[in-house]
């Protein structure tokens, strides 16, 4: 029994790490630009499929590096052409536009690569279990956790140590003042969008190794990412990270005792958080 519980907690942590990675990207974009990016799941799927295409040419490691960058590039382009027009307008329009993009991404990947699940090869030495007792601790899973950890640490370093990160943080608090101080806000938002989408692409490459490659992978991961943001607290990136891990573990544990509520439990958690602490666990008071 302990083994089963441990297995599911571990599983939950991994799933939670995905949610967190997705949600951090969403949070970055939401905080600076006020746009909920429904297409985030679409970017994730594109990241996975691009990696699938790239692996025969440059191998798994090359794809892991290159695919998220390509996704970020697509993100920069889409922000430049479409999303930029929506800043300052009713948030409704941002929702609808990215919603439409999500449809296009999902259907587009289905059109190009087909609706069926595709095999995704990860290096074989990563797949073998590390110990016979804890069969579930495969190298790939540890590897995923490691990559997510590196990405998260990297993100927080960028935000706290670089000029770009400083500007993003300042812009989140008061974009007008940042603009008056001579920072090109358009470019800042563009880069910030790219950064958020990069995280989605990275999550995509990692996720397909675990969950399989299919067009609906994005839409199945996006709602929990919303919940992660709400539970963690809007406007707080550490909160988002915490929220993602928490809901991941919660659904993992629920799988043991009440498997049919695996998905629903995170929404119950969200309801509880909203009831007790409407701003979220680490959210700032009065932001929304």
């Amino acid at each position, binding site marked *: 029994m302990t083994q089963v519980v441990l297995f599911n907690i571990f599983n939950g942590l991994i799933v939670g790490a995905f949610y967190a990675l997705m949600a951090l990207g969403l949070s970055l974009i939401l905080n600076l630009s006020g746009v909920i990016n429904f297409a985030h799941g679409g970017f994730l799927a594109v990241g996975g499929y691009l990696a699938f295409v790239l692996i025969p040419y440059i191998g798994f490691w090359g794809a892991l590096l290159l695919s998220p960058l390509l996704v970020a590039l697509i993100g920069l382009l889409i922000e430049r052409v*479409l999303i930029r027009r929506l800043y300052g307008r009713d*948030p409704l*329009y941002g929702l609808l536009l990215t919603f439409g993009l999500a*449809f296009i991404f999902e259907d587009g990947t289905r059109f190009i690569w087909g609706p069926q699940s595709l095999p995704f090869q990860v290096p074989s030495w990563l797949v073998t279990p590390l110990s016979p007792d804890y069969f579930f601790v495969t190298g790939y899973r540890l590897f995923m956790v490691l990559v997510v950890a590196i990405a998260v640490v990297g993100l927080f370093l960028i935000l706290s140590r670089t000029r770009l990160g400083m500007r993003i943080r300042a812009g989140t608090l008061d974009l007008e003042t940042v603009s008056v101080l001579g920072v090109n806000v358009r470019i800042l938002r563009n880069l910030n969008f790219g950064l958020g989408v990069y995280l989605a692409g990275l999550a995509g490459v990692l996720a397909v190794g675990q969950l399989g490659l299919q067009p609906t992978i994005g839409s199945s991961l996006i709602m929990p990412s919303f919940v992660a943001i*709400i539970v963690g607290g809007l406007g707080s990136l550490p909160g988002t990270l915490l929220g993602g891990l928490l809901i991941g573990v919660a659904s993992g544990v629920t799988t043991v005792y009440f498997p049919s509520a695996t998905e629903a439990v995170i929404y119950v958690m969200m*309801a509880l958080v909203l009831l007790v602490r*409407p701003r979220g666990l680490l959210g700032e008071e009065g932001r929304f």
Partner: protein
Amino acid sequence: MNGVDVNKQAANVVVWLLLLAMPYWLPAVGGYIELGSRAVVLGLAAMSLNFLLGYTGVLSFGHAAYFGLGAYGTAMTIKYLYPSTPVAILVGIVVGTLAAALIGPLIIRLRGVYFAMVTIAFGQVFFFIAFRWNSVTGGDDGLTGWTRQPLHLGFATINIQNNPSAYYYLVLVLFTVAVGVMAWLLRSPFGRTLIAIRENERRARFLGIPVDQHIWMSWVVSCCFVSLAGALYALLNNFVDPRALYWTQSGDFVIMAVLGGMRSFWGPLIGAAIYVVLQDYLSSQTENWMSFIGLFFVLIVLFFPRGVLGFIRRKAVS
């Protein structure tokens, strides 16, 4: 009476005439009656959403949940409890409205995108219940094995099952009642207060209006009528599946409202009609209709944000 009022009256007359005569003119232009019923039902859903979206200024992206609850409430009542169409519709409305009333206090203090995010996430709870609770809801395959029941009026029995026109007129009667109530509410002091909140929430608060309570009431009214639409939708198809609860359905309602014109009473109905016809056409033409619907979303946002009626109105002014 000035010119604008006359125009409004004329528009109302035209809308009602078109709706009343639908079973006669729709087949003549290449449609079929179920398509008309679909447009009216989804139009009712979009108009109910617009009560909140357009007239209270609250961005709900989770209305599919209450639409789906109405649908499941109705379907399960006929299948398991009591084979009567009116009772089933009532149960559907009660289930949807009750859920909305209970969830309301958790969300009414939130605003803008945050409200949208929370409403859409809450909708997922009901989706997963319907999806997972196989033995009762039929799971992913949907709930089948039931049909809408004949209407017993005491003096006559109307067969709405094998007669699409009769069902259409049942839909139209309930649509008329719902729309009438909403129009009456919007003209009442309550409705004017909602518009005041939309225009300037802070000012409304300073005037001593209990804003959160008003938003809660508007939310419940809106969800009540959307669950009526859900009930009618389930009866129309003699079928309900979890997709009626899925978050993409909520997006469809919002795009219908925006497409028709959020600032006008009839706008969402027109948006729903256009959307239904377009979806019917696209899904018969191509497997990739989702891409086209997505493209449609993008184009509306970029080039047509005021919707059909907003566009016409602006043309008329300039």
